[in-house]
C-alpha cells in the first residue's frame, strides 16, 4: 500500500453491545464507510472515508454509532496545526488546489457575538408582541427622494390626499429574512423546491442562484429572485419574468473574485436544460462579468435588465464584502440598483478553493456598518435597500444586522441546516448524504420537500417570533423603526477602532 501521511479526521465508534447489524448505516453512507460482513454478522467501518456528516449516527435505530473528531492526531503545535499539516500532505499527494464547501470555519472574530442588543426599562415601556401589534413586514427596493401629495377637497368638503409620487417597484417581505442564492445544480431540486415553497407560504423570497430556474418552480414567481451571474446560465427574457426581482451576482462572500465551477457529473439532464448548457459539461462561471469592468458597465446591465422586465421589478446587485466595499456600494447605488446584497466572508458555497474561502474578504458586520454609513453620508441610503448575507446564524444576528443598517438578511447555510445539513463541507463532491448538495437520484430522494418546506417554515416562524420578542423588549413596535438605529447596540470586548467602524458604543456607555 502506498505511503499515507494524512490520517483520518474522524473516528467511528460502534458500540457492539448496541449494534444489531441492521445495515442502515451501510445503506445510508454514500462514501462507503460501513461494510457488512455476513460471515461474522459484523459491520466494519473505515475511518479514512468518513466525512463527518453524521447521517449514519442520526439514522442508527439503536444509537450504536458515534462519529468523533479524531484527537491527538499529530503532536500538538500551535503554529503547525493539524489542518496545516493535513493540507500539505494532501497537496503533496495531489499537486492541486484544495477544495472545500460551506463557509469559513476559522476562528476569526464573530462580531455578532460581541454586540449586545438593548431593552426598555422604566423610561420607555416595553411591548408584549403577543398582546400588542408588532410589525416585522419590510420592503426591499428604491425609495423616492420625497413624497408629493395632492391635497384636494371633494364635493362634500372632505379633504382628500392622493400620493402623486410614483413609488419604484418593491418586494414586500412578511419577515426580514430571505433565502439566499443557491443554484439548482449546486443543490438538489428537492432542496430548491423546499426553499421556494417555504418562501411562498411565509410571504418572503428565495433566490435561484446562478443556475437558471427549473420550470417546475415557475409557479413560485411571486416569491422568486432570479440571479444573473457571470456564466449567464439559463438567462433569457422568460427567466427574468418568472421572478419578482432580479439580482446581478458580482461576487460571493465565500469566494470573492472567483468564478464557479459545477462539475459535469452534476450537470444532469434537468440541470442542463435549466442552465441551457449541454448535459455532462462543466458549468464554468467566469470570475468577472466580461461585460462589466466599471460602474458604468454595471449600470448598462442594470438598465438592460430593467428594460427586459419593463421597470416592474427591482434589480439589485450582489457583491462580496471586500476591503473597498463602501465606495463600491456607493457606485452600485449610482448605477441604478434597487438593492445591494453584501455577502460576508463567512458565507457558504458549494465549492471554493480553501485558501480563498478562509483568507479573502471581510466580516459582514464591518462591511454592513461601513456601507450603511457611507451611503448615509452621501445622502443616498434611501435609494437602495441593503440585504446582508454571510453567516446569519440566528434571529439575534438578524436583529443586530437590522440595527446596524440592513433592510433584510439572507440565510443560506441556516436554511440548509434546517433541511438536515451537518456542515461536513463536502458539497463539492456531489455525494451529500442528506440529499441537499447532490444530483445523484439515489441521494436526492432523501430530502422530502414536504419535510424540507415544513422545517424551513418552522425556522422562519420561530425566528420571526424571536425578532418580535426582542423588538418588543426594546420598546419598538416595527422593524422599520429599528433599521440603522445603532444606539440599540453596544459592543463588548471590542477595540476603539472596531467600535468606530461598527458605529456603536461600548457596553456600559449610556446615550
Amino acid at each position, binding site marked *: 500500500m502506498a505511503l499515507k501521511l494524512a490520517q483520518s479526521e474522524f473516528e467511528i465508534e460502534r458500540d457492539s*453491545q*448496541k449494534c*444489531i*447489524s*441492521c*445495515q*442502515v448505516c451501510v*445503506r*445510508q453512507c454514500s462514501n462507503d464507510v460501513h461494510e457488512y460482513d455476513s460471515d461474522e454478522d459484523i459491520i466494519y467501518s473505515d475511518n479514512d472515508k468518513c466525512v463527518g456528516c453524521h447521517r449514519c449516527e442520526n*439514522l442508527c*435505530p*439503536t444509537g450504536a454509532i458515534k462519529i468523533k473528531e479524531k484527537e491527538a492526531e499529530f503532536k500538538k503545535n500551535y503554529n503547525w496545526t493539524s489542518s496545516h499539516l493535513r493540507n500539505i500532505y494532501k497537496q503533496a499527494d495531489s499537486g492541486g488546489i484544495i477544495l472545500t464547501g460551506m463557509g469559513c470555519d476559522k476562528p476569526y472574530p464573530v462580531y455578532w457575538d460581541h454586540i449586545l442588543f438593548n431593552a426598555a426599562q422604566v423610561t420607555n415601556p416595553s411591548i408584549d408582541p403577543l398582546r400588542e401589534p408588532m410589525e416585522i413586514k419590510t420592503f426591499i427596493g428604491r425609495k423616492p427622494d420625497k413624497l408629493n401629495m395632492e391635497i384636494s377637497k371633494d364635493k362634500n368638503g372632505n379633504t382628500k390626499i392622493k400620493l402623486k409620487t410614483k413609488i419604484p417597484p418593491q418586494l414586500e417581505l412578511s419577515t426580514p429574512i430571505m433565502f439566499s442564492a443557491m443554484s439548482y445544480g449546486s443543490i438538489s431540486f428537492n432542496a430548491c423546491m423546499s426553499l421556494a415553497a417555504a418562501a411562498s407560504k411565509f410571504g418572503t423570497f428565495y433566490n435561484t442562484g446562478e443556475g437558471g430556474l427549473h420550470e417546475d418552480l415557475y409557479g413560485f414567481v411571486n416569491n422568486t429572485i432570479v440571479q444573473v451571474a457571470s456564466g449567464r446560465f439559463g438567462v433569457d427574457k422568460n427567466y427574468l419574468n418568472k421572478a419578482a426581482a432580479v439580482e446581478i451576482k458580482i461576487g460571493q462572500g465565500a469566494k470573492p473574485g472567483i468564478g464557479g465551477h459545477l462539475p459535469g457529473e452534476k450537470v444532469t439532464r434537468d440541470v442542463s436544460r435549466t442552465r441551457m448548457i449541454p448535459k455532462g459539461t462543466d458549468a464554468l462561471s467566469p470570475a468577472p462579468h466580461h461585460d462589466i469592468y466599471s460602474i458604468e458597465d454595471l449600470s448598462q446591465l442594470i438598465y438592460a435588465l430593467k428594460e427586459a422586465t419593463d421597470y416592474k421589478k427591482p434589480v439589485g446587485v450582489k457583491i462580496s464584502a471586500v476591503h473597498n466595499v463602501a465606495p463600491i456600494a456607493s457606485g452600485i447605488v449610482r448605477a441604478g440598483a434597487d438593492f445591494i446584497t453584501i455577502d460576508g466572508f463567512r458565507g457558504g458555497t458549494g465549492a471554493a478553493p480553501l485558501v480563498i474561502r478562509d483568507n479573502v474578504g471581510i466580516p459582514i458586520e464591518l462591511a454592513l456598518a461601513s456601507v450603511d454609513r457611507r451611503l448615509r453620508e452621501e445622502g443616498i441610503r434611501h435609494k437602495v435597500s441593503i440585504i446582508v448575507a454571510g453567516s446569519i446564524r440566528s434571529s439575534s444576528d438578524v436583529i443586530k444586522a437590522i440595527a446596524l443598517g440592513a433592510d433584510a438578511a439572507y440565510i443560506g447555510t441556516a436554511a440548509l441546516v434546517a433541511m438536515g445539513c451537518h456542515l461536513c463541507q463536502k458539497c463539492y463532491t456531489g455525494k451529500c448524504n442528506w*440529499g441537499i448538495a447532490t444530483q*445523484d*437520484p*439515489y441521494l436526492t*430522494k*432523501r430530502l*422530502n420537500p*414536504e*419535510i424540507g418546506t415544513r422545517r424551513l417554515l418552522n425556522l422562519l416562524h420561530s425566528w420571526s417570533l424571536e425578532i418580535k420578542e426582542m423588538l418588543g423588549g426594546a420598546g419598538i413596535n416595527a422593524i422599520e423603526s429599528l433599521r440603522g438605529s445603532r444606539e440599540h447596540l453596544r459592543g463588548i470586548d471590542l477595540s476603539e477602532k472596531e467600535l468606530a467602524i461598527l458605529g456603536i458604543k461600548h457596553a456600559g456607555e449610556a446615550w
Partner: protein
Amino acid sequence: MPGRHGNYMKKIYIKEQYCIGCRLCEIHCQVKHSKSKKIIKAFKDEKEDIVSRVLVEEVGYNSFAIQCRHCSDAPCVEACISGAMVKNENTGVVTCDEEKCVGCWMCIMVCPYGVIKRDLPRGRVASKCDLCVDEDIPVCVKNCPNEALKFIDTSETDSKEEVEVESN
C-alpha cells in the same frame, strides 16, 4: 386498550419517490412483532425468528416499502382453507389467525402484491401486516425518516396525489 378504535379504515400509502431504502420500516416491524418488543434484545436474541411484514423492494435507486394492502376484496381471505384469514368488517383490516392457520400457503399463491410471507421459525403460519392495530400509527409509518409511508383515513382521502399512489 390503547390504539385505534371505531369504524373507519386507514390505509398506508406509499410515496416511493421519497423511499430512501434504509429499511428502518422492516427493522421496526420486526421489533414490533418480536417477543421482547425491545430493539436490541429482539435482534440479539430473536433475529432469525422474526419476519418483517413490510418489504422494501429495490431496483437501482428506485425503492419502496410495501405491506399488505388490506384489499377490499381480499383474495387471500377467499383462498384460505381454514378460515384463518379474515377481514374485519369494521376496520377493514385483514388478519391471519395464527392458531387456525395450517400453512397451506394458498394465501401466498393468490396475493397479488406478494406481501404474505411464510413464518417458518414460529411454525407453519402465514405472516402478514396486521396494520399494528394496537398502535396509533403503524410502526413502519412512524419510523420512516423521510415520510415515504403515510397513514391516511381512506374516507377523508380526497387528494388526487394520494389516490394516484394507491392506484399505482
